[in-house]
C-alpha cells in the first residue's frame, strides 16, 4: 500500500536559508529598531486648570513648564520629551484626569496642582498610582504636612511657614486684625495659622469672615470691615477673588485707609487689579524685577519676555523651576522608574549659594527663601507693581529652622 507523504511546505534547506536571511536582515534592522525604541518620547503630565478663575495663574505655570522643556532641548535622557496637558476642573475631576495621564497617556511623572483643594486630591491619587507628582502652586500646609507621601513634592511654601516669615513685617501695623479668608482649604489654613500668631502676640480678632469662592460683590464685606475699624486686614482670598476685592475696596474709597496684608499673592492677581486700585503687602516666591535674581533666572525672565511678549509672572517661574528640577532629576536618574526619579529629586539642588532651593527628604517640601513685596505708592509701568521689602530668611542657613521639622506639620513619611 502506497502511503503518500504530505508535501513539505518548507524544505529543511529553505528553512535554514530563511532563518539566515531573517537573521541577516534582523542584524541590519536592529539598530533602527533599537533607535526607534530610544526615540519614543518621554511623556510628562501637566495637570493644570484650563478654565475658571485659577486658569490665569495656570496659564503661566504651564508656560514656565514648556519653557523649561525648551531650555532642556525638548529632550530628557537624550530622548524626545513632551508635556501632556489635562484640565483640573475639580478635585474629583483632577483625580480622574491624573489617572488618564498615567494609564492612557503613559506619563512617567505629573506636574500640577494649581489649587490646594485639587492638589490634596491629586496627591492621594499619585500615591495610589505610585507616580511622582510635583505640585507647583498649591500652598495648603497639609500637602507636605499631615497628608504627605513619598510620591508628592511641593514647591510653594506652606501657609504656616509663610505666616511665620510674614509676621515681623505685619505686626507693626497694630494688633486689631480683621480676617477675610476664602471658605476652602487655602483660606482656612491662612486663618488658622495667623490666628495662632496673633493670639501669641496678644492681639485681637475684630472680625472674621469666611468668603465663598467666586464672590462677585464684596460691598457688604467691606461695610462690615469699615464698621469694625481694624488696624489691618489679614486676607486669604485667592486669585481673581483678591482682584475683585481690591477693585471694590478702592471703589468704596477704602484704599489707603486700612492696610491689607496677604500671603502668596500671584502677580496675575495684582496685574488684574490695575494701578488705581492695587494696594497691600504680600509674600511671593519670585518677582521678575527683583534685583537679587541670579543670572539663570534673569535669563529665564528674558526668554519668557521674548517668547510670550509679556513679563514672567511668579507662577511662570514656579512652573519653570518645578519642571526643570523634574527634567534634571530624570536625567540624573537615567531612568523613568518612580523610585529612581524620587531618589534623584531628593538629591537635586538649584539656585545659588545665597538663594538655594532643594527638596527636603523628610517631607519633599522645597526649601527656599520667600519675598515680602509691597505695592508701589505710584505705578507707572503696567507690569511693575512691587517694591521688594525683604527676602526671608536673610541667611540661607536658617531655611531649615524657618521651615521647621517635617514632623512639626504632621508629616511622617514612610
Amino acid at each position: 500500500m502506497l502511503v503518500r507523504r504530505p508535501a513539505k511546505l518548507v524544505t529543511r534547506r529553505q528553512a535554514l536559508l530563511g532563518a539566515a536571511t531573517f537573521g541577516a536582515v534582523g542584524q541590519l534592522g536592529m539598530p533602527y529598531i533599537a533607535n526607534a525604541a530610544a526615540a519614543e518620547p518621554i511623556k510628562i503630565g501637566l495637570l493644570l486648570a484650563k478654565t475658571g478663575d485659577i486658569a490665569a495663574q495656570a496659564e503661566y505655570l504651564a508656560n514656565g513648564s514648556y519653557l523649561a522643556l525648551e531650555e532642556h532641548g525638548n529632550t530628557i535622557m537624550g530622548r524626545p520629551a513632551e508635556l501632556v496637558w489635562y484640565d483640573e476642573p475639580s478635585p474629583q475631576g483632577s483625580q480622574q484626569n491624573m489617572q488618564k495621564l498615567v494609564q492612557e497617556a503613559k506619563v512617567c511623572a505629573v506636574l500640577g496642582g494649581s489649587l490646594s483643594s485639587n492638589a490634596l486630591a491629586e496627591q492621594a491619587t499619585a500615591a495610589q498610582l505610585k507616580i511622582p507628582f510635583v505640585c507647583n502652586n498649591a500652598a495648603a500646609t497639609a500637602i507636605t504636612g499631615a497628608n504627605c507621601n513619598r510620591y508628592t513634592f511641593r514647591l510653594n511654601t506652606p501657609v504656616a511657614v509663610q505666616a511665620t516669615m510674614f509676621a515681623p513685617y505685619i505686626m507693626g501695623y497694630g494688633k486689631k486684625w480683621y480676617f477675610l479668608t476664602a471658605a476652602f482649604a487655602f483660606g482656612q489654613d491662612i486663618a488658622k495659622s495667623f490666628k495662632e500668631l496673633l493670639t501669641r502676640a496678644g492681639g485681637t480678632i475684630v472680625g472674621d469672615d469666611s468668603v465663598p469662592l467666586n464672590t462677585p460683590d464684596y460691598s457688604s464685606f467691606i461695610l462690615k470691615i469699615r464698621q469694625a475699624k481694624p488696624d489691618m486686614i489679614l486676607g486669604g482670598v485667592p486669585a481673581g477673588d483678591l482682584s475683585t476685592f481690591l477693585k471694590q475696596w478702592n471703589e468704596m474709597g477704602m484704599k489707603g485707609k486700612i492696610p491689607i496684608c496677604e500671603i502668596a499673592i500671584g502677580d496675575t492677581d495684582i496685574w488684574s487689579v490695575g494701578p488705581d486700585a492695587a494696594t497691600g503687602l504680600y509674600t511671593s516666591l519670585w518677582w521678575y524685577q527683583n534685583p537679587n535674581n541670579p543670572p539663570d533666572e534673569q535669563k529665564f525672565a528674558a526668554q519668557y519676555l521674548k517668547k510670550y511678549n509679556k513679563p514672567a509672572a511668579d507662577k511662570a517661574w514656579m512652573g519653570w523651576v518645578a519642571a526643570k528640577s523634574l527634567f534634571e532629576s530624570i536625567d540624573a536618574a537615567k531612568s523613568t522608574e518612580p523610585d529612581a526619579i524620587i531618589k534623584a529629586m531628593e538629591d537635586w539642588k538649584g539656585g545659588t549659594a545665597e538663594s538655594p532651593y532643594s527638596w527636603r527628604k523628610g517631607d519633599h517640601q522645597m526649601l527656599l527663601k520667600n519675598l515680602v513685596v509691597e505695592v508701589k505708592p505710584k505705578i507707572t509701568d503696567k507690569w511693575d507693581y512691587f517694591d521688594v521689602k525683604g527676602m526671608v530668611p536673610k541667611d540661607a542657613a536658617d531655611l531649615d529652622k524657618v521651615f521647621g521639622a517635617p514632623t512639626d506639620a504632621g508629616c511622617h513619611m514612610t
Partner: protein
Amino acid sequence: MLDVLLSQVAAGLVLGGLYVMIAIGLSIIFGLLGIVNFAHGNFFALGAYFALTLVQNFGWPAVILAPVLVGIVGMVAERLLIRQLYDKEPLISLIVTFALALMIEALLRLIYGGIGQPFSQPPMFTGIYLWGPVLITKYRLAVFIFTVIVLIGLWALMQFTPFGRILRAGSRDPEMVGLLGIRLPRVLTAVFGLGCALAGVAGVLAAPLWTVTPSMSTNAIMPAFVVVTIGGLGSFAGAVIAGLMVGVVTALTIQFQPDAANAMMYVFMAVILLLRPRGLLGERWERFE
C-alpha cells in the same frame, strides 16, 4: 444694629439692581423664544470685553457701542444657531447654548489671554456718598439709576409700541402672529439680539466692579437663573422683584453668616418654589406646559 442693617440693605439693593440687569435679558429670551440661553453669562462677559477695548481705543463715550456690538453678535448667533432650536426639545437648546458659552469663553481666552484685565470706573463716578450709616459709591448709585431707566424703557417698549405688541402676541401664539402676515423670524432675531444686548449692558456696568476675565460669566449666569426662576420664568416684573430680593438676602447673609452668602440665594429659591412652584409672578403658559 439698625444702622448696620440699613447699610446692608442699601448695598443689597444696588447688588440686586445689577442682578436684575443681568437676568432681564435671560427672562425676555426665555419668555418670548422659549430658549434657555446658557450662553447668557458669556454675552455679559462679551459686553465687559467690548467696553474694555472701546475705552482703551476710543475713550469712555465709545462704551455706548459695547451693548450694540453684543446685540449684533447675538443676532448672528440666532440666525446661525438658535433658530434651529425653536421646534426642538428644550434639552437640545441647553446643550447647544452651553457649547456656545464654552466657545465664547475660549475665544475671549484666545484673544485677551486668561489673565484679568484692569478696568476702573469713569473718573466722573469716583467717590462715595455717606448718608448716616448708609455708604454708597457714586458709581453704584449711577448703575442703579441707569438700571431703573433701562427697565422703564424696556417696559414702555413692550407695552406701548407695535414691536412690543408683536412680541407679546408672538410669545403666546406664534402661529397666529404668522397668519396675520407678520414675519416672526425677523422679530425673533431682534428679540434674541435685544436679550444679548441687555446682557452686554450688564457686562459694561459690572466691568469696573468685577474682575474682567473670560470666566466672569460663571459669576453672572447662576444668579441670573436664580432670579429668573424666583421671579417666574418669562416674567418681567417678577425678575425685577426677585433680583432686588436676592441682592438684599445676599447682603444680609454676609452680615450674619458670610460663608453661606452664595448658597443662601439657592435656599431662598427653594423656599419660594415650595410656596409658589411657578415663581413669584409666574403664569401658566400653554406653550411650555
